[in-house]
């Protein structure tokens, strides 16, 4: 590392003059550690090949850990601290996490794909093991004893059997830097480093695997935490954006008269179709944005009527296709089937609708260092993208990740940052932008609508011999998929920068998500074209477990439909077609805990009461993580209202780092998934998204919470850790739909399972 940067990093951890971006258990977990954010002279990302790019031990013995990852509320920062403390043999409260600041952390691809523990922890574990190795060499020299006769406890190296001979890490580290060179492999999520120091065997763990309390929670609950909404920069102004009157509408003119009368008004910013307003304080910015009279051209009628969405998706020529599974010959099996089962499932556009609308602060300094504070999960991508937006070199832009209001993928926080950059550049002042609720819910990014058609062949003995899966879906990534491309961002697209940031991402049933061993299986995925290629309020990108809940709603509902057609119990049917021991284990664990009543669905009710009760199963696999979920529901036959009364979720993600943080993450994911399964559906008309707030985009509330949630954690210390942030959301919709079928005999194939849809299915059943 160049000396200059080293100094700046040292200053970074010493200086208390700036903004909070990290936390320390050293402060009893109570006081957020304040870290400097003052712009350095030059911004050069640290090289991953340097050990001290990953961690630094200060003279008080605090271990400062630098990672390009971010804490989005699931306990990753605490888990990382556990991993580092474990390898170094230091107390957990001596570890300070510094996350997501592009000037001091390596690019680990940011947060995504539930990979923070699965992949992102690896270089931290290895760097820590190498730091320990290096410190042992130094201690060996210092104490004149071979390294193999030394041991470490609480950051102090001692001679085995002679406690009088010892030296602390702090003393060693201040005498010589941890500047070893490490071998680098991979990049992005897969970035890893290796050196002569080998990590511990899991059998030696004493900190990893313990239910350590999350370090971010006491400051949050005690009101001492700072979110990106709370970043304050000297001279900072407040901005708001004004979006077009509909998709494709272009700017005609603006009447500023009323806005200018708002005390504190500073400036209206117009750049092509990007319109914003800047004021001295937040209330003034909100009032000025409302007072601005913007005239737009008629919006395009780019969307179909909502009720025609799925018909549109079926009729439009597909943009791209991919075969994701092929075993045997499904066509032959279907042609010769004694009986066929066919069903189609539909899953709507869903919104991130984060708890708070996106917020960011940008301090654009032409000729100097631009700093952007953002809650976007991928700070190093944002750094490149914002640099391109400003047409400045990447190393003159620093992005500092600070937690925003909940993040489940790419919610649009990235777009808010671009808005802040545009407004700061236009005013020459630091600008804080927070979106209004409608900017987030209506104009934020969306998860794609997905249709899945399934067919199964049953032979004369009633055995399922073949399954065919065909999806038609909007791409999971119409935007935000080219790191460094300014065209990623809504605001940039409105300024006329083309959206070249999309990729064809398929709603696929692939080898890893289809664990069933059917003799013949075939899966095809088709992408349908975006409604509008630029600045669309229905533009899609990653929402938690992208496409997973939609495809699993189809495949796991369909497994139950085949089971019902063959008169089999849904769990026994799955067992019959599973080879994978871990998949079987989560099913066994969940059903045993739930007291699963083994019988075919639907339940034969003696009398038909208004409230029908049933149970359903869902199995999911995702990048090596296995989840079995039982949902128990009550269905009101009169209203169609569904209430989940109980969940049992068995979860196997290999080696568990922190069981308590894992349990709470799964619990919350299950509730969010109730929300997505029963309530969430983006509404729209021909030109606009009409889901604009919590009334028009309802989510789960207190009354929707089950009476009981049991989470069963299956730990496999002998296996590597796999993901845990997303997998438990996957099969919830199907488990609920299967429970509704079990309770009533009505099969609902369109999500969310609103009372109207369930009622319609019940009515159809009666009239059948």
């Amino acid at each position, binding site marked *: 590392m160049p000396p200059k940067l080293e100094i700046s990093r040292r200053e970074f951890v010493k200086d208390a003059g700036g903004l909070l971006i990290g936390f320390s258990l050293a402060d009893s977990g109570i006081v957020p550690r304040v870290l400097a954010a003052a712009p350095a002279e030059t911004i050069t990302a640290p090289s991953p090949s340097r050990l001290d790019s990953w961690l630094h031990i200060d003279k008080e013995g605090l271990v400062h850990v630098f990672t390009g990852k971010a804490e*989005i*509320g*699931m306990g990753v920062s605490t888990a990382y601290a556990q991993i580092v403390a474990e390898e170094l043999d230091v107390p957990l409260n001596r570890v300070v996490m510094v996350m997501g600041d592009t000037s001091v952390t390596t690019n680990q691809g940011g947060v995504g794909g539930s990979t923070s523990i699965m992949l992102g922890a690896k270089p931290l574990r290895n760097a820590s093991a190498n730091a320990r190795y290096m410190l042992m060499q130094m201690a060996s020299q210092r104490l004149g004893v071979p390294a193999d006769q030394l041991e470490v406890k609480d950051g102090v190296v001692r001679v085995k059997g002679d406690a009088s001979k010892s030296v602390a890490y702090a003393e060693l580290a201040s005498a010589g830097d941890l500047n070893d060179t490490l071998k680098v492999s991979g990049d992005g999520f897969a970035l890893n480093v290796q050196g002569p120091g080998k990590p511990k065997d899991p059998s030696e763990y004493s900190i990893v695997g313990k239910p350590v*309390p*999350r370090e*971010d*929670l*006491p400051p*949050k*609950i*005690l*009101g001492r*935490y*700072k*979110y990106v*909404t*709370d970043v*304050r920069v000297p001279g900072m102004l407040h901005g708001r954006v004004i979006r077009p009157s509909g998709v494709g509408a272009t700017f005609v003119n603006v009447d500023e008269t009323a806005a200018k009368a708002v*005390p504190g008004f500073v400036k209206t910013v117009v750049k092509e179709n990007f319109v914003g307003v800047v004021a001295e*304080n*937040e*209330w003034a910015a*909100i009032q000025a944005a409302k007072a601005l009279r913007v005239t737009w051209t008629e919006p395009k009628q780019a969307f179909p009527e909502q009720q025609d969405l799925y018909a549109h998706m079926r009729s439009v020529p597909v943009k791209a296709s991919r075969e994701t599974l092929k075993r045997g010959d499904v066509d032959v099996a279907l042609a010769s089937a004694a009986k066929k089962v066919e069903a189609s499932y539909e899953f709507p556009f869903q919104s991130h*609708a*984060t*708890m*708070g*609308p996106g917020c960011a602060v940008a301090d654009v300094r032409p000729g100097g260092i631009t700093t952007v504070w953002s809650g976007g999960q991928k700070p190093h991508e944002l750094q490149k993208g914002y640099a391109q937006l400003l047409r400045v070199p990447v190393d003159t832009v620093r992005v500092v990740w600070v*937690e*925003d*209001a*909940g*993040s489940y993928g790419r919610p649009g926080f990235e777009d808010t940052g671009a808005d802040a950059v545009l407004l700061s550049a236009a005013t020459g002042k630091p600008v804080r932008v*927070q979106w*209004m*609720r409608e900017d987030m819910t209506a104009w934020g990014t969306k998860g794609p609508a997905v249709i899945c058609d399934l067919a199964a062949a049953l032979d004369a003995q009633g055995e399922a011999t073949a399954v065919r899966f065909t999806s038609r879906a909007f791409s999971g990534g119409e935007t935000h998929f080219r790191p460094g491309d300014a065209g990623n961002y809504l605001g940039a697209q409105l300024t006329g920068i083309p959206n070249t940031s999309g990729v064809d991402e398929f709603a696929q049933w692939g080898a890893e998500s289809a664990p069933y061993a059917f003799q013949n299986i075939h899966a095809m995925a088709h992408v349908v074209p975006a409604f509008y290629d630029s600045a669309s309020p229905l533009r899609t990108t990653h929402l938690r477990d992208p496409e997973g809940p939609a495809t699993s709603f189809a495949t796991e509902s369909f497994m139950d439909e085949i089971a019902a057609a063959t008169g089999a119990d849904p769990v026994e049917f799955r067992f019959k077609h599973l080879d994978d021991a871990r998949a079987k284990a989560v099913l066994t664990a969940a059903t045993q805990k739930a007291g699963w009543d083994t019988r075919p669905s639907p339940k034969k009710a003696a009398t038909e009461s208004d409230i029908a009760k049933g149970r359903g199963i869902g199995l999911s696999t995702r990048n090596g993580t296995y989840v079995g979920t039982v949902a128990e529901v009550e269905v009101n036959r009169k209203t169609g209202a569904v209430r989940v009364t109980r969940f049992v979720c068995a979860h196997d993600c290999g080696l568990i780092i922190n069981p*308590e*943080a894992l349990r*709470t*993450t799964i*619990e*919350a*994911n*299950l*509730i*969010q*998934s*109730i*929300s997505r399964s029963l309530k969430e559906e983006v509404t729209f008309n021909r030109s606009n998204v009409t889901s604009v*707030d*919590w*009334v028009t985009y309802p*989510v*789960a*509330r*207190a*009354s929707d*919470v089950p*009476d009981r*949630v049991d989470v069963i954690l299956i730990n496999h210390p002998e296996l590597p850790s796999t993901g845990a942030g997303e997998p438990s959301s996957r099969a919830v919709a199907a488990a609920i739909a299967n429970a509704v079928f079990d309770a009533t005999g009505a099969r609902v194939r369109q999500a969310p399972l609103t009372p109207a849809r369930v009622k319609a299915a019940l009515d159809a059943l009666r009239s059948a």
Partner: protein
Amino acid sequence: MSVASLKVNGRVHNLDVDPKCPLLYVLRDNLELTNPRFGCGVGQCGACTVLVDNRAVRSCQLTVANAAGREIVTLEGLETNGKPHPVQAAFIAEQTFQCGYCLNGWVLTAKALLDKNPHPTDAEMRRSFESLVCRCGSHVGIFAAIRRASESAKRSA
């Protein structure tokens, strides 16, 4: 602009602000009490909750003029002598919340509820919290924390 006298967390502030300005922005921008958070601006979510005369109130819906002269407590003001409020202690013990952006609503509504009704039934609890949003879905932990706070009040009674 006019001078409003606001009593927040036991301190009186005389502020020259627009009397029609919602309390939320004055707390955040003038008094730098940033815990009440902007969630929706239309009273649908509770992220901006403060206590006004010990009732949980949405500060995005209360003008400065209507807040003047009343006892306002924000999350910052819940601790006494550096000791967490029992409701806060219960939330910490239960490891509740993911992002935590919504928590002013839950913690302060819980405090107001338990002051009035120290041992709410499950149905009373759900009813009191129905108007709040937690987008991350941390409700299981939230309910556990409120039950814990209620139990600890029982023990210390």
